[in-house]
């Protein structure tokens, strides 16, 4: 477990990412002059579909390489690292929860959770079992994702994201595929488990109910200048 701290865990400055547009020429999707998140903090970003929220999270996670700027996670600048180093940092420090769960269908729930930490060099099955127990799936370790409800699948995804003991958890519309009851429960679970593990949580969503669960909510358009430029 990471000790709770109020120091900055994530510090972003001058971050830019563009893609080729169908019309030709680059189209800027992310232009974030500055952003920070304290260690152990929980923040929700409000943004409409297509506003670049997922790209923003992919940049923080190192899944995409930034065109410019820096993304400091602790002492390391994700944006300055080569791909193998980004993979290592993601494997050891960042948990990711997807809207569509993205569980590996050929693996049992326990194996999915084990894989969540295995790429960082740990593969502790007892820890994985403890996490499944924590998310209320203690008897489902040998089940396959297709044998679970959508709510249960997202709980497995939460356990997987926390398996490596991340300092930062990124959640991309984690309740987008869930009904209202499951969405509330899942959201509460994500927040509680992140708090228990001392992980900072950055959630992006356009769902008012999901956003309402957070004490601190910011508009992504206020952070990402590319959204304003697109609107104008």
């Amino acid at each position: 477990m990471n000790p709770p701290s109020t120091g900055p865990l994530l510090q972003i400055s001058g971050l830019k990412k563009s893609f080729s547009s169908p019309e030709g020429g680059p189209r800027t999707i992310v232009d974030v002059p500055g952003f920070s998140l304290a260690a152990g903090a929980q923040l929700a970003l409000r943004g409409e579909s297509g506003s670049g929220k997922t790209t923003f999270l992919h940049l923080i996670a190192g899944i995409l390489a930034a065109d410019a700027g820096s993304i400091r996670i602790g002492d390391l600048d994700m944006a300055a690292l080569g791909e193998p180093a980004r993979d290592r940092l993601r494997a050891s420090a960042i948990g990711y929860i997807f809207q569509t769960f993205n569980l590996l269908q050929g693996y049992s729930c326990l194996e999915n959770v084990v894989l969540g930490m295995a790429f960082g060099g740990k593969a502790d099955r007892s820890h994985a079992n403890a996490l499944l127990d924590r998310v209320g799936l203690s008897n489902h370790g040998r089940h396959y994702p297709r044998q679970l409800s959508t709510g249960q699948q997202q709980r497995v995804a939460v356990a997987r994201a926390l398996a490596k003991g991340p300092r930062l958890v990124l959640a991309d519309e984690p309740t987008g595929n869930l009904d209202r009851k499951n969405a509330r429960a899942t959201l509460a679970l994500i927040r509680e488990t992140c708090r228990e593990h001392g992980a900072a949580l950055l959630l992006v969503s356009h769902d008012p109910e999901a956003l309402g669960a957070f004490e601190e909510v910011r508009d992504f358009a206020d952070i990402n200048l590319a959204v304003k430029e697109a609107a104008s």
Partner: protein
Amino acid sequence: MTLALIILRSLRQHALSTLITAGSIALASGLLMTVWTVKTQAQSAFTRTTTSFDAVLGARGSKLQLVLNAIFHLEASPGNLEQADYLYIKHHPLVKAAVPIAVGDNLRGYRLVGALTEMFTDIEIAPGKKFTLEPGGRIFSPMAKEAVAGSFAAAKLGLKVGDTFHPFHGLDFNPNDQHADLYTVVGVLQPTNTPADRVVWIPLHGLQTMNGHDPKYATQVSAVLVQLRTPAAGFLLDLMYNKQGNRLTFAWPVASIIADFFSKISWFDRVLALVAYLVALVATASVLASIYNSMSARQRDIAIMRALGARRRMIFGAVVGEAACIGGLGVAAGFVVYFVLFTVVAGLIRAQTGVVLDVWSGGRVLWLCPVAMVALCALGGVVPAVKAYRIPVAETLAPIS
């Protein structure tokens, strides 16, 4: 551990294509090992069989036919020699031993060979090894209607000491062409793993004077097996019989004649080997195709693993490792194919020639072929591995509804 888990799960997820591809590898490796082992062992076994005799003297004709007839008990005899020819070479100062044989009859397809008792008492079938009888048996008396059965012939014909039989005329079995003579089995030879195992031995005199044979040939022999005192003696006798004479053939050196024979049919080996190599190549290509074709279905899983922190080289290694595992599974099953194929082929060769091949004496091919097949399969996995390596994570992870 993680790599092994990924490989195992992938093999299981694509179990059908894994089994089919491994099956094709099994056939390819089994075929390759069988062709190679049978080829090398047959050549070595045939050459080894001839080592107890240096030469064969027979009627004018093909040296190979003479050797096959007199030593391997195959083919028809090219003709007979007079008693005087046999006695001449028997007492030749350059000759250590000369053993006459006569052929021309059979027992339900198994050749009867007329021989002197010296064949069993004096001649070494391999260095330091003579014919040995099973307990309770003895060598036939030279003038009696008695027989000693080779081990394979005895087993196939169900012969044991005390049994009696009527020989059949000719080298091929014709149930309507039976001799009136009645022979009694007085001994069964222990296995020698040579063509002698397929033969029923009777006294030379008995075969020469068999009821129904023309009496004017009663002193003739079919061939004389010769052991020389020195290698140089072969040159002199070769000159005398083959170059200066025109009535007899002196087949010498026997091992070289057999080697020449294998050399002449080496094209057949090469064709078989080529077929086996092509099958191996196709099997390897099938590994490539099966993994490559399933790559679209795997893209998302690979992207998820990458998002969890898996490095590109691990994904690359997992795909290559999977291909190698398919190769490994195939090769393991290939040993079963090899065992079955080899047993069938070796059985046929033993039944036809008496030469025994050993399934576990394949030499280096039994490790070289599996290693090469696994390496080829891993190589076949490189192409889909490169495709997996290049999968764009962010694009592939885009939500699907």
